[in-house]
């Protein structure tokens, strides 16, 4: 989401560009995994898109008659963006990463690249985005790959229904990044039964193999701040003060690329601090998911049970509380009990195992439609998990030497690869 990206950008970064672009023929310049994750792609290295595109927002009514508490008065349905061609063309669905909306900058860049290459595009928010939880999640409890795939499939069908009278479609494709990448695999598997779209190709970008494992990586980043994760508020304030002092000293004229580059070059933040800021941004993001889910289920997790929040009620305390909760708390106290109630006898280990690509390994191995694109230094994967992806998808795995987690997603070459993956005819084994 935009403001989070701004937060990250505002509060950050560090190490010297020791070896600006190693001599490996790959032009993405930022070597460090954490720095790349925070900085993303410099504007000058993104492709240029036409000024005018046939692209608009659509609001999809996925669950008719859905009851929403007064607090969410602004939520009128699932916010997606829709880009369309005037001639017959393939349609690609894009699924956003953890917490992101269907209008987030990264997914819009992808949509533009596909639109430019002649595709119809529909973007979808992540099932962990509040808009999705409120408007499109049947259970209102996000994070289960199988259920999220059902919800996504229903959302895609509704969106398709809404636009199919206006466009001509030759084929359907599917692509997602981060959590959305892993979800794409589960959606594709569901599509093999339902056969509404018969996706021809599916690309997973920087996907986690196991959700539990990848979210553990994030939590570990926050352990290293002074006092540990429980002192994230003090850490946030300290980093902000540091940033403010730096800004005043430096005679900067505004918060812009020059400032961010200077912060990066002069190593304002240490290695641990940078990692901490990434993890904090993820916690703040996650807080939106925890809170909306709790409000929608009336679960009494962070909001008193039976309290009906209104538009003018202060959420300040809920914000502080929700962003102090770790993924482990959410999993142990909210997520696991929810599924235990539905499936008595379910063990924690079994639930963790089901939230992984390994649980549908047989299908993934047998199907030729998948491709993976990730980075050697994506810190959400262990070396073992990266090797697993390479082994599972073979020649259809593209591993870039750097880029961290999604840092190079909007880089020219990466967008070209994405488009080319779907463009290449036939299915290579």
């Amino acid at each position, binding site marked *: 989401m935009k403001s989070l990206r701004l937060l990250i950008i505002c509060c950050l970064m560090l190490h010297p560009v020791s070896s600006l672009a190693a001599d490996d023929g790959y032009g993405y310049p930022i070597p460090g995994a954490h720095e790349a994750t925070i900085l993303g792609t410099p504007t000058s290295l993104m492709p240029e898109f036409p000024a005018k595109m046939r692209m608009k927002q659509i609001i999809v009514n996925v669950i008719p008659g859905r009851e929403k508490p007064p607090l969410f008065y602004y939520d009128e349905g699932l916010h997606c963006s829709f880009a369309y061609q005037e001639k017959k063309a393939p349609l690609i669905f894009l699924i956003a990463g953890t917490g992101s909306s269907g209008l987030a900058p990264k997914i819009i860049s992808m949509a533009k690249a596909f639109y430019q290459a002649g595709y119809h595009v529909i973007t979808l928010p992540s099932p962990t985005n509040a808009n999705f939880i409120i408007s499109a999640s049947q259970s209102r409890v996000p994070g289960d790959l199988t259920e999220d795939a059902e919800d996504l499939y229903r959302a895609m069908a509704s969106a398709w229904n809404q636009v199919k009278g206006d466009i001509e479609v030759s084929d359907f494709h599917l692509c997602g990044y981060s959590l959305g990448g892993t979800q794409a695999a589960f959606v594709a598997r569901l599509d093999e039964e339902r056969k509404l779209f018969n996706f021809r190709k599916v690309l997973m970008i920087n996907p986690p193999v196991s959700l539990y494992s990848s979210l553990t990586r994030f939590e570990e980043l926050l352990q290293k701040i002074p006092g540990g994760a429980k002192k994230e508020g003090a850490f946030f304030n300290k980093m902000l003060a540091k940033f403010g002092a730096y800004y005043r*000293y430096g005679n900067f004229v505004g918060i812009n690329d020059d400032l961010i580059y200077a912060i990066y070059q002069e190593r304002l933040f240490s290695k641990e601090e940078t990692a901490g800021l990434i993890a904090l941004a993820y916690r703040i993001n996650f807080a939106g998911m925890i809170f909306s889910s709790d409000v929608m289920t009336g679960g009494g997790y962070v909001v008193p049970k039976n309290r009906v929040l209104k538009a003018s009620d202060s959420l300040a305390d809920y914000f502080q509380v929700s962003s102090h909760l770790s993924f482990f708390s959410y999993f142990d106290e909210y997520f696991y009990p929810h599924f235990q109630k539905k499936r008595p006898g379910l063990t924690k280990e079994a639930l963790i195992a089901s939230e992984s690509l390994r649980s549908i390994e047989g299908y993934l191995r047998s199907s030729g439609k998948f491709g993976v694109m990730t980075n050697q230094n994506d810190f959400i994967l262990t070396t073992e998990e990266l090797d697993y992806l390479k082994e599972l998808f073979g020649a259809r795995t593209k591993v870039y030497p750097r880029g961290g987690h999604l840092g190079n997603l909007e880089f020219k070459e990466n967008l070209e690869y994405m488009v080319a993956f779907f463009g290449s005819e036939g299915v290579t084994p």
Partner: protein
Amino acid sequence: MIKRTSGRFLQAFSLFLLLLTAGCAATQSNLNREIPPMHTIGEFRDQRFAEVNDPWERFNLNMYRFNFYLDKYLLLPVVRGYESVTPVFVQHRVSNFYNNVAEIRNLSNSMLQAKGKESLSTLGRLVTNSTIGIGGLFDPATKFGLERQDQDFGKTLGYWGAESGPYLVLPFFGPSSVRDTGGLAFDSALLYGIYSAVGPFDNTSHSQAISAGITTLQGIDMRHQQDFRYFESGYPFEYYMVRFFYHEKRELESAKPPEKVLESGDAGK
């Protein structure tokens, strides 16, 4: 006469208060008793973060909602209509024109902050764009290396040490503070004063209609240039994020000169 006006004002004001608090009464009749949640603020021993002085939060939340509906039912449909009937080239000229007019605000305030170099550069922009840029329709100054430096009276007040005061969400304008609202009023009054003094359309018989048209187009262009959309993030704590970023940005941009920071020695914490 005065008495009657103030009475009417009081009436309107109490009605307004009543509307703001109307929601409160309803909850008390809830049949289901509230049960405390598993996690509450009391259990965390940590500093609060991203906090901003916001004693009028309820009012501000209501105003935030008002702006959402104002956008939805009035501004955005108008802006969309404007964008669909006006060629992109013309849209850019309109934006440039109003941005050039705003240089008067930038100039007066960089002067009020005694920023010599910046004032000269802004004056250079104003003169260049008003002449070579054909009355501000084009922006050749940026190509000549004169970068735009936004200033306003809120920043001037901050520069000379005025605190921002409580956070305030204004109708139409959005996030602000007590100080910045005063600044906005001052800047608008100044511009209006200049406009009235110059009276460019006084000789025509439609000067009022023309002024109204100019102001309306300015409002449309303002919304057109601003790509923020309420609740587009889908983030339930968006109000708090917007509040935090607005406040921090203003604090930084109206910061005192570096020498003073050096003296006070509070840097490098």
